[in-house]
């Protein structure tokens, strides 16, 4: 008796294959193939389709907002294409420069002590958790500064006249966007979920500002404001910045006993 392969039985399970009738009668007669088929069918039946997170009625509009300024222009006159490519290169350069600055600032913050270090002799005895705490504080301080700058952009947008040029705010938002992404990644890695979540909300709004026309229409501006408002973004940014400042000023956790003994 010729048996059917696992692949044949997989196709049969999915209602495909040209020998369906033959397989069906074979399964009635052959215990080995029946057992294999039962195992394949049982396994595949266990795999349920994952539930996709729900997206609201406005989702299509959100997607449009995100992509509309990336759509290639239909009018592809040579000078315009050249201009677009130059702008793209320039933006990449700016993004790279901003990223480099952030890294440099972060490294500098770690290398140079921010205050004179009376306890310098302790450095050799500083434990890994203490060093991690210092680095965490530097990160949170930088994020608090970043939130303050972002708050000013958001406030400007909330108070901007209904029609007009927002290119200054856009330039500012674009600079903040690059650093915001880096800080969000750092916050995720540091386990600061709330911080990461607020930065994620902030990124969306900054992105929307950057991608709006510089001569913004009243309706577009209103939409940006509505989103900032709906996400309570300004409120979150202020509260989080304040909270991070408080954490910055809070006394450092006690040093491990072994370190304390060494310095006393």
């Amino acid at each position: 008796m010729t048996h059917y392969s696992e692949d044949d039985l997989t196709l049969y399970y999915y209602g495909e294959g040209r020998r369906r009738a033959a397989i069906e009668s074979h399964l009635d007669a052959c215990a080995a193939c029946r057992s294999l088929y039962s195992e394949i069918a049982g396994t595949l039946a266990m795999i349920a389709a994952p539930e996709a997170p729900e997206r609201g009625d406005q989702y299509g509009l959100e997607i449009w907002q995100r992509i509309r300024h990336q759509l290639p222009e239909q009018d592809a006159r040579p000078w315009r294409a050249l201009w677009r490519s130059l702008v793209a290169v320039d933006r990449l350069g700016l993004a790279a420069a901003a990223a480099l600055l952030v890294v440099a600032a972060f490294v500098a913050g770690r290398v140079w002590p921010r205050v004179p270090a009376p306890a310098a002799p302790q450095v050799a005895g500083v434990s890994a958790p203490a060093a991690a705490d210092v680095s965490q504080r530097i990160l949170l301080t930088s994020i608090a500064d970043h939130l303050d700058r972002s708050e000013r952009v958001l406030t400007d947008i909330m108070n901007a006249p209904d029609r007009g040029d927002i290119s200054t705010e856009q330039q500012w938002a674009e600079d903040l966007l690059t650093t915001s992404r880096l800080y969000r990644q750092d916050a995720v890695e540091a386990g600061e979920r709330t911080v990461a979540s607020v930065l994620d909300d902030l990124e969306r709004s900054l992105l929307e500002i950057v991608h709006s026309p510089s001569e913004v229409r009243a309706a577009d501006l209103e939409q940006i404001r509505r989103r900032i408002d709906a996400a309570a973004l300004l409120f979150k940014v202020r509260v989080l910045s304040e909270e991070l400042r408080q954490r910055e000023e809070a006394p450092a956790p006690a040093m491990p006993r072994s370190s304390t003994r060494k310095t006393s």
Partner: protein
Amino acid sequence: MDATEAAAVLARARQGDSDAFRALVERHSRSVFRLAFRMTGNEQDAEDVVQESFLRAYRQLGRFESRANFGTWLYRIVANCSVDHMRAKQARHDQARGDSLDEAMELPAADAPGPERMALSAEIQRRVQAALGALSPLERAAFTLRHYEGRSIDEISAALGLGTSAAKHSVFRAVKKLRAALAPLRSLQS
């Protein structure tokens, strides 16, 4: 939007009318997201795929044949964008992926889930996710289209631009890996 209206919107979009394309984006975004989520298994990746799919669709609108169904055409773009996205991601995390493959295949056999352990269905989901994460982008795409989306091998072949045999074998390889990952739980399930 009825069929006549949809055809008119599509025609305008093909002529470069961005408002018409916006209507298409607004109409199809949610279904595109659902497919992208199933293909990638990750919300952030799915969002990226949604955006890239619409941008690609816009660039390729000139090649769309007006007799074809826009939804089907778009679904092919989403499938391919998902594969490209997962390949790019895989290239970035190649080492990590190797680890997860080992992990998926070496999950400890569950003798019997005691009361202290997570529910069986949760354990199945965990193993399924680990095993899906260990598939190649093409295997995952082919399996998703076959198993979750109910597409035939011929449709998968057309969507992913593969020969029928390649599409079939991508599904087979995926099924084999999933069976191996779920084998320890089969006895509990039956």
